[in-house]
C-alpha cells in the first residue's frame, strides 16, 4: 500500500527543495519540456523522494469545471469517494490521468481525474448556503481527512497538479508533460528528511486555483497551524506548504485582502522600516501585523505561488533560501538557481535576485512586471 497521507511524523514533515516557475503574461502556451529541463538542472536539490508540477491553462475544454485529481491506493477507496462525488457533484467527465510507465517510477497509486461542478440541489444546502468554492474546499478537506486511501491533490479550474515520488524529470515523463500545454508552469524537487515514499507529500500543494511550491522550513509552523485551526482549516498533511496555501486562501479569498498586501503578511516588513513610512502606510502595515501576526511565515523559505491571474515568487523576510528571477519578453522565470533559468533561456533580458520579503509578482494581461513589494504598495 502506498502512503498518500501523512502518517509518518506525529506533527509535521520537514524538507529542503528546489523550485522553478515559468509564466507567460500573454497566456501563450508552451509544453512541459522547458519546465522539465529547468528543474532537472536542480536535480541535486532533491533526493528522489518527491517531484511535481502545476500547470495552468491545460484544460481549456473544461475551463468552467473543477478538475479534481485524486490518488487512490485501493479501488474500494475509489468507490467510496466516487459515491460522495456522485451525490454532491455533477460529473461531466472522469478518466484515469494519462501516465507513461517508466522504470524509474515503479510503484504508483491509482491516479484519476474528474471534471465536476457542485450540484445546485446538493444535500448540504439544507443547512447552510455555501458558495461553490467553499463547498469544494470542504469536500477536499473531507475526502483528505476522512476517506482512507484517497487523496485529492488538485481541485482548481483549468489547472492541474502532477506529482509523485521520484525525481521531477522522471515524474514529468511519467505524466507525459511534454504533451501538456499551459501558460504557467511551476515545478518542485523535494528533499524530505523524514517521510520516504509519500505521494501526497510531493509539491505542488494545491487548493482550488492556488498552487504552491516551496523550499523552506517554516519555523513558525506551530502558531501558523493553530491560527488556521481557529478558522476551521484542517491541517491533515502537516506540511509547511499546506500552511502557506491555507494562509493565502484565508487572506485573499476569505478576508478579501489584495494580493500585494497578503504577501506583506507572509513576510512582513520590520517595524524599524515601518516606523519610517508615511502615516497611512505605517498605520496600515502596523494593523496588518497586529491582526495577522500569527500568519507571519517566519523562518527560511522561497515560494512560488500561482493562481488563475498570475504568479508570485518571494522569499522570507531575511532571505534565508535562494530565489532568482529573470525576464525574457513576456516570459518570467523564477528558480532556486540561475543555472536552471539559463538552461531554458540562455540570455534573458534581465536577471536579478529578489530582495528579502519583496515579491516578484506577474499578472496576466498586464505585461508590466512589478519588481519588489513595497514599491508597489
Amino acid at each position, binding site marked *: 500500500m502506498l502512503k498518500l497521507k501523512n502518517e509518518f511524523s*506525529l*506533527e*509535521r514533515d*520537514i*524538507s*529542503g527543495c528546489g523550485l522553478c516557475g515559468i509564466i507567460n503574461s500573454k497566456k501563450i502556451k508552451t509544453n512541459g519540456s522547458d519546465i522539465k529541463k529547468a528543474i532537472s538542472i536542480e536535480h541535486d536539490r532533491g533526493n528522489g523522494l518527491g517531484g511535481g508540477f502545476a500547470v495552468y491553462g491545460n484544460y481549456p475544454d473544461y475551463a468552467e469545471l473543477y478538475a479534481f485529481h485524486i490518488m487512490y491506493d485501493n479501488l474500494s477507496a475509489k468507490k467510496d469517494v466516487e459515491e460522495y462525488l456522485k451525490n454532491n457533484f455533477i460529473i461531466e467527465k472522469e478518466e484515469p490521468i494519462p501516465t507513461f510507465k517508466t522504470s524509474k517510477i515503479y510503484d504508483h497509486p491509482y491516479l484519476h481525474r474528474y471534471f465536476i461542478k457542485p450540484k445546485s440541489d446538493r444535500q448540504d444546502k439544507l443547512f447552510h448556503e455555501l458558495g461553490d468554492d467553499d463547498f469544494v474546499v470542504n469536500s477536499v478537506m473531507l475526502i483528505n481527512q476522512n476517506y482512507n486511501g484517497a487523496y485529492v491533490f488538485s481541485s482548481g479550474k483549468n489547472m492541474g497538479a502532477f506529482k509523485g515520488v521520484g525525481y521531477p524529470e522522471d515524474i514529468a515523463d511519467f505524466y507525459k508533460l511534454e504533451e501538456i500545454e499551459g501558460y504557467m508552469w511551476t515545478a518542485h524537487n523535494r528533499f524530505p*528528511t523524514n517521510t520516504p515514499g509519500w505521494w501526497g507529500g510531493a509539491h505542488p500543494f494545491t487548493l482550488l486555483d492556488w498552487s504552491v511550491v516551496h523550499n*523552506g*522550513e517554516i*519555523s*513558525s*509552523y*506551530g*502558531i501558523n*497551524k*493553530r*491560527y488556521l*485551526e*481557529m*478558522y476551521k482549516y484542517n491541517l491533515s498533511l502537516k506540511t509547511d506548504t499546506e500552511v502557506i496555501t491555507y494562509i493565502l486562501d484565508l487572506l485573499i479569498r*476569505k*478576508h*478579501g*485582502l*489584495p494580493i*500585494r*498586501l497578503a504577501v506583506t503578511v507572509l513576510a*512582513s516588513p*520590520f*517595524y*524599524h522600516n515601518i516606523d519610517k513610512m508615511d502615516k*497611512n*502606510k505605517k*498605520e*496600515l502595515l*502596523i*494593523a*496588518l*501585523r*497586529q*491582526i*495577522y*501576526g*500569527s500568519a*507571519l511565515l*517566519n*523562518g*527560511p523559505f522561497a515560494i512560488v505561488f500561482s493562481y488563475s491571474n498570475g504568479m508570485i515568487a518571494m522569499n522570507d*523576510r*531575511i532571505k*534565508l533560501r535562494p530565489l532568482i528571477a529573470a525576464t525574457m519578453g513576456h516570459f518570467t522565470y523564477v528558480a532556486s538557481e540561475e543555472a536552471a533559468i539559463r538552461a531554458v533561456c540562455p540570455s534573458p533580458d534581465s536577471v536579478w535576485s529578489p530582495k528579502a520579503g519583496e515579491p516578484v509578482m506577474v499578472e496576466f494581461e498586464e505585461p508590466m512586471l512589478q519588481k519588489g513589494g513595497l514599491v508597489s*504598495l
Partner: protein
Amino acid sequence: MTKSSFSNIQSEYLALVDHNKCVRCKRCIQNCGWGVYSFGGDRIISDHNKCVACGRCYTYCPEGAISIVKNPTVVRENANWKDGLMKDIWRQSETGGILISGMGTTFKYKKYFDHVLLDACQVTNPSIDPLREPMELRTYLGKKPSKLDIEFDKNDEPILKTKMPPQIELQTPFVFGAMSYGSISLNAQKAMALAARALGIIMNTGEGGLHDDLVPFGKNIIVQVASGRFGVHRDYLNSGIAVEIKIGQGAKPGIGGHLPGEKIGVDISKTRMIPVGTDAISPAPHHDIYSIEDLRQLIFAIKEATDYEKPISVKVAAVHNIAAIVSGIVRAGADIVYIDGYSGGTGAAPNIIKNHVGIPIELALAQVDERLRNEGIRNEASIIAAGSIRSSADAIKAIALGADAVAIGTAALVVMGCHVCGKCNTGNCSWGITTQRPELVRRLDPEVYGEKLYNLISAWSHEIQEVLGAMGVNSIESLRGSRERLRGVELTDTELKVLGIKHAGF
C-alpha cells in the same frame, strides 16, 4: 485569653554578630526595619525573634560582621508533622487568628515551567544571529479585529478602512504587575514608572489610586479599578493608557484586601480618597458585579467614561474553571485578560488561601489560550500571564504557551532588594518597598532602582532574542502560542494534554 509568657515558637533565624569584626558603627541598628539590633553599651545585641532574614543588615554591614543563620535548634523531625505545621498551630492557639503573610505561596508545588524545554534549529532550518539580524519583540495589547477592511485612495493605494481598537504598544513583552500605593511605597512605584517609561512598557497602579507624582507617567501606566474603588474618579480613569478591573489575584483568589489604618497617612489618604487612619478594605467581590453580565456593564461604563480610547483589562486569578471564565470575560468585552497564577505575590493574604487556592499559571494559560482558539475569539483579547514569572525562560515558555505578554511583580521587588521574606504585611520592610515608614521609604532611591529594573528587563529581553534566534524566528509573534516549540519532561500524559505539548523525544 491570657497570653503565656513563654512561646513554643523559637526564632527561625539567628542574627549573629562577629564582635571581633564589628566596629560598632550601628549601621545595622539603623538599617533593620524589624528592630532586631540594639546597642548594649559596648556591643551590638540581637533579638533573634524579630529577624525575618530580609538580608538588609549584612548587605549594609561595612565589616561583613553579620551572618544570618537558620536556627539550628530542632523541632523534632517528623515527615508528617513538619515544624511549620506545629508552629502554625502554636501561633493560632496563642492568637485565635487567621495566619497572614506577604508574597506568594511558600509551598513546594510542581513548577511546570521547570518541566518544559525549548526547541532550537539544526540543519533543516537555520538559526538567526540576534547580534546581526533584527529581532523583534514589539507587542501590542488590545482587541484585534479578526480581519482588516481595506479601501483604495485615488492613486489606487490601499488604506486602512477598519478602525482599530485602542492598543498598548510594548517594546518588549513585559509589564510590571499591579502593586498598589499602600501595599508598596511611592518610591517603589516611582522606580517602576521610571523603568517602564525608559523601556517602553507599562506599570500598573494596583488598586490604590494614582499619586500625583506619577501622573506624568500616564502613557506607561495602567490604572486599576478594584472592589474598594480607591482613588477612582473620571480623571483617574483617563490618566493612564488603559484601565484594569481587578476581579482577583493569584495569591488570594476569592477574597478581598485590607490595608490597615496605621498605613493610611496623608498621602495615601489623598491618593485613595479615604480619611487618614481608616482601614482601606476591598470587599471580596465587587458589589456591583455578581455575575458576568454585571462585569460587561462595568467594562462598558468605563469605556464610556474613557471615550472608548483605552483598552479595558480584566484581572482574574487562575482557578479551576478558568478557561470558561476567561471566555466569558472576553465575550463581556474585555480587551485584555490578565491571568494571575496561584504562586503570584501579594502584600498580605491568609496562608490558608495563599497556599491552597488556585491553579498554576502554566496550566491555566494553556487551557485559556486553547479555549479561546476553539471558540474562534483568541483575537478578541490579549492575554497577560502572571504568577511568579521568575526568569526570561519562564516568560518565553509562557509566551509560547499562548500569552501575549507576562507581568512581573515579585521579580521587580527582588530588584529593589526584596529577599522574599514574606513579611510585607507588617509594614516594616527594611528595603523601603512594602512599608510606609518614611525613614525606610527614603532609602529606596527611585532612580537607582529604576535603572536596575531597566537593566533586568533589558537583560531578559536580550535573552528572549537569543532564544528566538536559536529557534530561527525573528519576531515574537512567531513564538506566541507556538507550542510546537515546547516539549515536556517528567510530566504525565494528562499534564502534557493540559499544556497542549508533546513529551520530549516526540
